[in-house]
């Protein structure tokens, strides 16, 4: 097995967008423009960028949730695009996602136990008793309790819901978790709890994270490597300390200089 668990080369994705005053004309938007990216096993690669930079499109395309125009995604040595439906489904067991909005990404009509166990049911793992035991231990691991299985998502706060989302993603013991802005909707105190939880789980379960974020302060804490995206291209990538200390590209410098409070802390 190679050092990289997930790698992509030459990813390209173009959207048609309506334009003009009444939307009669269309323009092409290059959401991804020949993007190469590689995630080392057991580490965190953060993809940072401003809105419209293509970072969320990248996440969706890596998971094959959206078709690519061109490019290749290798996961654990296999080309994801070459897999048929069944094989892709099997591969997705190792490739999970945590979403930004803990209010929108949990089905309000399902109990927490049902939400978390769903992955095990879909992949036909274990019998009812084993599944239950697994759900309980997973919920406890993310800081919730067995009693929470019977509750509905609306009974929880934003931070707790994000814990449910994490439990759902991790119950299948995935290898890679794509986190799309997982703490952006949370207060800073809750954000700190979730970031620490993600780090602990990574150590314990040997997870690799692809961490999509616009918050450069959060990225500094969670990432080992960083890729900076701008207008569909990766303009700079590297090891987090080195990149923050010595950004080479003007765009990265500009981005880092805009971090609120940075100048004061540096003074």
């Amino acid at each position, binding site marked *: 097995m190679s050092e990289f668990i997930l790698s992509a080369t030459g990813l390209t994705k173009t959207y048609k967008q309506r334009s003009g005053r009444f939307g009669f004309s269309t323009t092409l938007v290059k959401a991804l423009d020949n993007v190469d990216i590689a995630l080392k096993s057991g580490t965190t690669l953060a993809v940072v960028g401003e809105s419209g930079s293509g970072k969320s499109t990248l996440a969706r395309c890596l998971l094959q949730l959206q078709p690519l125009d061109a490019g290749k995604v290798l996961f654990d040595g296999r080309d994801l695009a070459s897999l048929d439906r069944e094989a892709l489904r099997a591969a997705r067991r190792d490739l999970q996602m945590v979403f930004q909005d803990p209010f929108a990404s949990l089905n309000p009509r399902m109990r927490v136990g049902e939400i978390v166990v769903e992955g095990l049911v879909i992949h036909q793992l274990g019998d009812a008793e084993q599944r239950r035991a697994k759900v309980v231990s997973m919920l406890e691991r993310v800081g919730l309790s067995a009693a929470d299985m019977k509750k509905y998502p609306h009974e929880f706060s934003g931070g707790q819901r994000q814990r449910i989302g994490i439990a759902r993603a991790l119950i299948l013991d995935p290898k890679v978790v794509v986190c799309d802005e997982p703490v952006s909707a949370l207060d800073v105190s809750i954000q700190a709890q979730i*970031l620490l939880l993600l780090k602990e789980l990574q150590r314990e379960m040997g997870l690799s994270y692809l961490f999509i974020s616009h918050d450069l302060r959060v990225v*500094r804490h969670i990432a080992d490597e960083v890729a900076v995206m701008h207008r569909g291209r990766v303009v700079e990538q590297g090891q987090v300390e080195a990149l923050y200390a010595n950004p080479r590209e003007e765009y990265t410098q500009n981005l*880092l200089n805009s*971090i*609120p*409070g940075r100048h*004061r*802390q540096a003074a």
Partner: protein
Amino acid sequence: MADLLKVEKLTVAPAAAPSRLLVNNVSFSLSPGRTTCIVGESGSGKSLTALSVMGLLPKALQRVSGDIVFQGSSLVGLSNTQMCDVRGKRIGMIFQEPMTSLNPVLTIGFQVGETLSTHLGLSGKALRTKVAALLESVGIPAERANSYPDELSGGQRQRVMIAMSIACEPAMLIADEPTTALDVTVQAQILALLADLKTRMNMGMLFITHDFGVVADIADDVVVMFRGEIVEKGSVGDVLDRPQHPYTRALLDCVPDAEGRKALKPIDYDWLKGASV
């Protein structure tokens, strides 16, 4: 220096449950040419405090007690009509979402001009000249006056909102999370613009935010709120570098720094309860 704004023992509660205090005994003041940041997490009462000052509390809530004195006279008990004369003219306001605050079917020039014609009675050429000057002062070319909001980026829309809020040269500007929805590079530009306008026009600015980084960039004075109460207030240097209250210290420990020098520490609310809140 005389206080521009003095909030005294402000208390706000739902009309249906007057004992549930959402803002509890809040007092602070603001001088001309200075920026006071109210910082806190969601539910701390920071936005309700700002809405109280503007007289824009939701109908279900009411001011239980306390006084709000602006330029020497109380805003409490003013009729809606009287308050309309204060808002927009003597107190400017900017909100978080620049897209929902602008009318999509009117040009930005018209919307900026509306403030001027309503409060100052300008019209015709005088109005157009003033609108052009205002747009230029917030960094938007005057010829964009005929553009509609959807033709502008988020940052430009927030600039239009700022142009509207300062149109009548208010003595005070209230900004409720004005940069939260913006990208960081745009946020930095908007913060710089606000700081510049504040100095040039000698405005007092009441700035609501949840982000200590923004506080560090823009505040002169800081008010930290937690569960409806002020737990600490002081100059920006004192609060950020020498926080006295355990909650302020705990909240600062949660904020990741851009250098990655410190370890994150979530707030232990149980411990906080024991520690002299």
